[in-house]
């Protein structure tokens, strides 16, 4: 009987402990500075109608979702920035919420689903529609200082907007610009100071570059355009369509396939059939090949240089940038890419603290430091137009002015999935060898399903 009683007690304990294990853990995945003073109860008490630029007199804790603190090359900068912010703002505690790049959006959404919404998120511009659709993102003007909002370039603010309302501010921006290898140009008998400006010029240069091999006999690819199945590849392909004056979505968010779109898809096929473009590559694959001298030109965000440099520290000696190519009847318009700060709908005290953090991140000192020590890019603030570090950047000089030629992308909630469909289209005309019209017809059917 004793054994039976013991067994019953053990079974009950097992059930109880299992049930208990499902609760709590709201701050799982949260790392960063320890809570210095703020407690939830006090936070609730401190709910005041503070304007975005109000003084923070009560202790307040805000949560900042940032995948970059997990990435080598970015971690030191971000941790140092937050330490400096904490020293200047002792009443504000910033808790970092971290997850790898591919998981941060779901992490933030899951937290919000459990009633724990972050205050600020650093990520891609294309994540804005997801955050807005989820009802998490707050209009930037409701949170951030009016001075900051007025200082962001209107065209950049427009790129962050849905129905005329901006839901984030970019920390820095870049179009998909053309990086090229000056040494390979020289080796092919081309002028390293005269990169192509149109797709026609690029196709004229490509055979000479594709005829090269590396010192260890490896093939050199002439031109890299990412087509692997990841959303950022879809953004790059959209940029390529814009190069040709084409569109993917009209202003209402409906499919708007035009001649520019068709011309771009035909170019992807040409690049593949000529063997110029490494098949089915992600951006990181292209950076790898470029760093190793196996790729002569490719499209990337300006901060892609960081990836190139991490593989080949001497890359700065041969890399140069150029404006996006013009094709067909297009004029080389591109797509804006941005490291974007998205603000969320929390109480006023937290919004005020968040505004202070965003002001700090976007201060001239910190942005200059970022461009100098982390990676090159273009500022999003008009007051930083003459930023010395950008003017001095030999790397960005070739693509100067290309930020002004970006064409906004219509934000729809399923933009990431649509980007994956664009990758499938590119793979259909390249790897599957389908003709352009058939592949576009298939894309139209599947994309219509995604946009629904």
């Amino acid at each position, binding site marked *: 009987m004793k054994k039976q009683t013991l067994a019953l007690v053990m079974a009950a304990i097992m059930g109880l402990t299992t049930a208990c294990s499902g609760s709590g853990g709201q701050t799982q995945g949260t790392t960063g500075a320890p809570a210095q003073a703020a407690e939830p109860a006090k936070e609730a008490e401190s709910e005041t109608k503070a304007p975005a630029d109000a003084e923070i007199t009560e202790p307040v804790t805000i949560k900042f979702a940032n995948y970059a603190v997990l990435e080598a090359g970015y971690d030191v900068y971000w941790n140092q920035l937050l330490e400096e912010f904490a020293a200047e703002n002792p009443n504000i505690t910033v808790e970092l919420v971290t997850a790898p790049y591919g998981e941060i959006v779901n992490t933030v959404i899951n937290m919000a689903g459990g009633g724990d919404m972050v205050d600020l998120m650093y990520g891609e511009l294309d994540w804005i529609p997801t955050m807005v659709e989820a009802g998490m993102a707050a209009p930037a003007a409701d949170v951030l200082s009016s001075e900051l909002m007025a200082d962001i370039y209107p065209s950049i603010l427009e790129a962050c907007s849905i129905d005329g309302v901006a839901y984030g501010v970019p920390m820095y921006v870049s179009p998909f610009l053309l990086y090229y290898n000056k040494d390979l140009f020289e080796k092919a008998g081309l002028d390293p100071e005269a990169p192509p400006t149109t797709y026609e010029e690029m196709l004229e240069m490509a055979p000479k570059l594709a005829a090269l091999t590396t010192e260890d006999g490896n093939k050199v690819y002439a031109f890299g355009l990412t087509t692997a199945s990841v959303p950022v590849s879809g953004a790059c392909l959209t940029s390529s369509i814009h190069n040709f004056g084409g569109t993917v979505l009209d202003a209402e968010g409906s499919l708007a396939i035009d001649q520019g779109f068709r011309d771009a898809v035909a170019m992807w096929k040409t690049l593949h059939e000529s063997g110029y473009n490494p098949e089915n590559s992600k951006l990181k694959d292209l950076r790898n*090949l470029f760093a190793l001298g196996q790729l002569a030109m490719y499209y990337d965000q300006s901060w892609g240089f960081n990836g190139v440099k991490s593989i080949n520290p001497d890359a700065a000696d041969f890399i140069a940038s150029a404006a996006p190519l013009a094709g067909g009847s297009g004029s080389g318009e591109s797509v804006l890419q941005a490291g974007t700060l998205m603000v969320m709908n929390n109480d006023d005290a937290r919004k005020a603290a968040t505004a202070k953090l965003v002001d700090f991140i976007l201060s001239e000192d910190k942005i200059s430091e970022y461009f100098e020590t982390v990676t090159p890019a273009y500022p999003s603030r008009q007051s930083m137009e003459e930023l010395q570090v950008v003017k001095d950047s030999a790397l960005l000089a070739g693509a100067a002015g290309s930020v002004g030629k970006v064409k906004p992308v219509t934000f729809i909630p399923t933009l990431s999935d649509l980007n994956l469909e664009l990758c499938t289209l590119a793979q259909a005309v390249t790897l599957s060898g389908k003709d352009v019209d058939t592949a576009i017809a298939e894309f139209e059917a599947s994309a219509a399903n995604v946009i629904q």
Partner: protein
Amino acid sequence: MGKHAQVRVPMTARERNDRIFAGALLLPSVLITVIFILVPVADSVIKSFLDFKVKNIISGTPGSWNHFGNYIKLFSSGRLGMAVAHTLVFVAAVVIAQFILGMILALILNSDIRFTRFVRSIMMAPWVVPTIISGLIWMWMYQPQYGLLKYLVGIFSGGKMTDFAILNDPNTALLGITIAALWKQIPLTTLLLVSGLTNVSADLLEAATIDGANGVKRFVYITIPSIMSVIKITVSMAIIENFKQFPLFWTMTGGGPDNATTTLAILSYREAFVSNNLGSGAAVTTVWMLLMIVVVFVYNRVFKDVEMN
């Protein structure tokens, strides 16, 4: 009548207490199963009929009935049939190859050759490696410009094939993932089969040998029937494991190229977590679950006479 009338024997107090005791012991497991498995499954099935997105979770608002909209979208898109076909081909290929290769390895390891104990211990390494890491390792080996596979194909083809990229060809991408899945899963299959083989009666085998049965006959008529219950469990586990295989696909191809590796797992993830349409993702999951139930049911019917001992 041909049937014996059943006589109800009254339960003794001890039997009644034993039943209550057994029920009490089972209760935590039943509760856990209901709360953590049955309720979420039912919830998912219900949500598959609703317009239910992330904003519903965050705002705490219930989804709205959408007149089978998720299923209509799924069946009219043409993607479901493709995903079902890829899933079934992948499961069949991996399970069959895994069983054959696992059995060959198990027979070798169960023989008297030297170092079998050592091989058994190191053989488990791939199984211990997390699936995502396995995917990344195989991606490096398959890398089209400097991967090991490209190098080997170049050597064995006498330099004729210089641009072999298994994951970039829609005709071979599924094979590439199948190989990675086999590398990861064969060790466990082998281990389970070895444990079965060690229990095959040596007396029976010896008697069969004396009666003149050769190795093949001993294997077919004694070894296989003796370990049938182990085989049933092993193959069931392999079917379920590969039906729900997601990390290898997402890491290695993301469902590409040109949808050649889009399985139900990928389709479900894209609907639920890329498009953030949880209702639509639940519809894929429901179809996926029904398909798995059918396959496991058919499998169990085929093996219905196998005694579990």
